[in-house]
């Protein structure tokens, strides 16, 4: 590749020592190289991640409507406002309901798909691709298909056509909060979009289970099927299952796209981020209250993340390095 003469250019300082131990020659340049490699990233991280967070904390203590350079200090008023605002508190309730639906169903469906695909001997790659393909679709595109074709509230929507064949009246899937059919629409959309992703994680984990475990179980008289699944497969997937459930929770917490598009203009079914969007960027442009909301949501998710770290042993792998 290169000739040895370039070494002197790269590390001119301790030129004499280089012949004995080439790596020592680089020490003088390490600091420089470290900053050369990490400088752009760190600068960006400061400006675009840390500054906004700091600014947001600052704004949350001021009355900041239509302005980002406020002058009226209001203490914790924005926090009191958000925490006593039924819409914001309600959005946390919406998240809870959503998580209660989406986390177990996605877990079960993606595990089920992985078990199916893992057992296939014929056209396995094809079926894996079919279940994985929706991962490439955007939430907006799925919301559009769900809202305007499958669960369209009018006669020509697919679901209304199908229930019509059985003589059932049209259902207003999204435009009527009672009964809350909109949950069915939202949950099926997200199931379709994300199950394939978690299926891949489960597939990778399934293939890591040592075959000897199954052989040993067979010798011990475990019946193939449910017993093997219950006492071998499921316990072996514990780490993956925990990770999947926490990833699903965090993803549900950040849900925005499908709620915003499926339920635009409605007042029900608003998860936290949608509520925050309307607070900060809606008609009032209330950046103070919006920032307070962002701080509250961030604190909540940090608690979850720390809890997750404990569960997943995130810190442990760090110490090992």
């Amino acid at each position, binding site marked *: *590749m290169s000739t040895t003469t*370039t070494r*002197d250019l*790269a590390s001119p300082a301790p030129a004499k020592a280089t012949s004995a131990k*080439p*790596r020592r020659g680089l020490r003088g*340049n390490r600091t420089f*190289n*470290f900053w050369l*490699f990490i400088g752009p*990233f760190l600068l*960006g*991280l400061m400006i*675009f991640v*840390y500054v*906004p*967070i700091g*600014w*947001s904390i600052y*704004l949350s203590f001021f009355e900041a409507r239509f302005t980002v350079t406020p002058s009226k200090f209001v203490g914790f008023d924005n926090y009191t406002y958000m925490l006593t605002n039924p819409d914001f508190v309600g959005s946390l309730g919406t998240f809870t309901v959503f998580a209660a639906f989406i986390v177990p169903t996605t877990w079960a469906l993606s595990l089920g798909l992985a078990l199916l*695909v893992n057992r296939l*001997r014929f056209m396995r790659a094809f079926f894996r*691709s079919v279940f994985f393909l*929706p*991962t*490439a*679709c*955007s939430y*907006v*595109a799925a*919301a*559009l*298909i769900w*809202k*305007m074709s499958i669960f369209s509230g009018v006669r*020509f929507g*697919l679901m209304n056509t199908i229930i019509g064949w059985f003589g059932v009246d049209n259902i207003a899937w999204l435009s009527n909060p009672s009964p809350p059919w909109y949950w069915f629409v939202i949950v099926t959309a997200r199931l*379709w979009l994300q199950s394939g*992703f978690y299926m*891949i994680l489960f597939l*990778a984990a399934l293939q890591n289970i040592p075959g000897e475990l199954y052989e040993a179980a067979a010798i011990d008289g475990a*019946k*193939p*099927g449910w017993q*093997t699944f219950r006492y071998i497969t499921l316990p072996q997937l514990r*780490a993956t299952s925990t990770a999947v459930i926490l990833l699903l929770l965090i993803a549900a*917490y950040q849900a*925005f*796209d499908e709620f*915003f*598009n499926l339920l*635009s203009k409605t007042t029900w079914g608003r998860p936290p*981020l949608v509520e925050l*969007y309307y607070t*900060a*960027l809606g008609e009032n442009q209330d950046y103070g209250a*919006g920032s307070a*909301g*962002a701080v509250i949501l961030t604190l909540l998710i940090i608690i979850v993340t720390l809890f997750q770290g404990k569960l997943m042993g995130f810190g442990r792998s760090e110490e090992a*390095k």
Partner: protein
Amino acid sequence: MTTTAPQLSKKRRTRRGGVLGNTGLYVATGVATFLFLVPFYLLVRNALSTDAEITGEHWKFFPTNLQWSNVSDLFDDTSVDFARSMWNSLVVAVSMTVGILLVCSLAGYALARIPYKHSNKIFYLVLGTLMVPTAVTFVPSFVLVSSLGWVDTYRGLIVPGLFSGFTCFLFRQYFLGFPKELEEAARVDGLGYWGAYWKVVVPNSLNFFAAIATITFISGWNAFLWPLVIGQDPGAWTVQVALSSYMTNQTVVFHTIFMATAISILPLVFVFLFLQRWLVQGIAQTGIKG
């Protein structure tokens, strides 16, 4: 593939008998496949139908004539500049992919391989951002970007997303496992950190770079919340924001809306078909093991 099949299948048969027999297995797979493909079927059917066929009295399983003219209807439609939004999405997704790969890989390499006394402190700065998901901070980010005057610009769409602590963390983890011998050989050849990085480390890490690139491209193309916040002028809309606007428009023209959706998904289907290997590998590597 065929050579290993008998061995594999024998092993598998002894390992897993069935709650489901083989028939049950394929019936379940068939039903799931059918359900997973229904949305794609509807998308294609609607995109190539006339409005009369979509909204007709009886369900039409497939259009009588494939309405390819729907494509020109879509691009002739002046209410939403769809071509512009596709172009914007392409610029954003490609720039984000290139930018993130460059900035985050260099930073990850520094944290993994260049000894420096404050390295740990800086690593904690990066780790700290992992606890705060970017979606939650869109309000403060918007405040910053609007004070920079970057609303409705490519800069505003792209730059704030480049400094991903998570991607940097993934690169660091990856480089920790990169064989040291290769770099030492480069040192013997007289390369410094910079030279070794570009001539030895990157060329030997293309699989990992491809995996991250594929994931980044897809999420850049599909991003909605940030482009919605930044793209206030229709000229700065990405394709997702344009699609979203169709859903709230007063007038609904079904065939162009579905053609637009189909076209917006098309690039990703290609990415998916050709790069699936890296995508699967990337998810398996980064999803948990990260």
